[in-house]
């Protein structure tokens, strides 16, 4: 597998989904994830992180192109309709890329 098959999948979404999404990410075969707290605005309005209910998180998953596609598809079907959520992928070069594609 080539280096450029590695993607960084980034999700901006509601903090309330953290437990649920982490489960999904692990089940769909990603080797890990990184989460930071965030605030923001989008089509679901202002989410200013004043309190839990309107806090966002920012999840990053380094994974193979394939897993990234599956994850995106799954998230789109499960959450996109009812939750504030944005998903995008970036092409990256990662050290020891095999760690993320096994």
């Amino acid at each position, binding site marked *: 597998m080539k280096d450029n098959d590695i993607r960084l999948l980034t999700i901006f979404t*509601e903090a309330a989904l953290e437990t649920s999404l982490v489960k999904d990410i692990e089940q769909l075969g990603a080797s890990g994830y990184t989460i930071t707290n965030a605030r923001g605005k989008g089509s679901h309005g202002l989410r200013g992180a*004043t309190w839990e*209910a309107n806090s966002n998180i920012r999840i990053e998953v380094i994974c193979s192109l394939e897993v990234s596609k599956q994850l995106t598809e799954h998230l789109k079907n499960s*959450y996109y309709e009812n939750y504030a959520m944005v998903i995008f992928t970036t092409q990256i070069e990662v050290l020891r890329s095999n760690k993320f594609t096994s």
Partner: protein
Amino acid sequence: MNTIDPVIWFFLFGLLAGALKSELRLPSQIYDFVSMLLLLTIGMKGGVELANQPFTLLLPQIGVVVMAGFLLPFLAFPVLRYVGRFTRADSASIAAHYGSVSVGTFAVAVAYMNSHSIDFEEHMALFVVLLEIPAILVGIVLAKGLSKKMQWSKVGHEVMLGKGVMFLIGGLLIGWLSGPSGVESISPLFFDLFKGVLALFLLEMGLITATQLGSLKRYGPFLLTFGIVTPLIFAVLGTLVGLGLDLSAGGTAILATLFASASYIAVPAAMRISVPEANPTLSLTASLGVTFPFNILIGIPLYYWLANYFYLILFS
């Protein structure tokens, strides 16, 4: 002027600061901390009281209150669905908010009774815990129906183990197991600071309420009306139940306040996960933007007046 509790001024100050778009904020972890202290302390107060009296004596009251928790959402739901013309999910979610209780409102009611030297049954805190949960379950059933597919264990987990409920129950257990003399050593933090902590909590609630006012305009007069009329009706029910359970006037007013209050911590979190198609803005606008300020500014004194009034009518 001095008859208004300072904690209410904190709320109004927060509201004003929010309306003026000031940069004032309680740091988010401090807000979490302050909420947590409120929940733990209220739980502990209830627990200590439980340690003081035979549990069995309370059983009838507990039974009635829990039943009320299951019934209240059924009263609100049809109004929302057929008068308000909300979707089924939205109606169910809002009904769950109003069937459940607001811990912050309860704390203000307790502060009101204390500062007017009105007696009340200390085990009212127990009812906060009891009323928190049933409405959530009813809300989910109203939204989804009673299908076999419902993952009740997941829902139960979600509801019972959410932060709000856990801290209340934890406080209750700790207070109960430690007893009145046991909690003395930790009372400087949990009990002596309580009113100040409540002040900070209300400051932030004022700021949050201010952010809801925008959506209030958008969702129009129905939510405004609903957010004022529902607590009034529920308070009357609460007053009747309180008198029926032989509570003091103070205790009756607090029970009325609990019935009248709408959740904005435990229920929104549970609904977001279990009824995701419900729009959280609707329920929060009503419960935080209308009912919360109504209750703490006007409701509580009114419900106390009501309790006394009914007392007079019924018992003299």
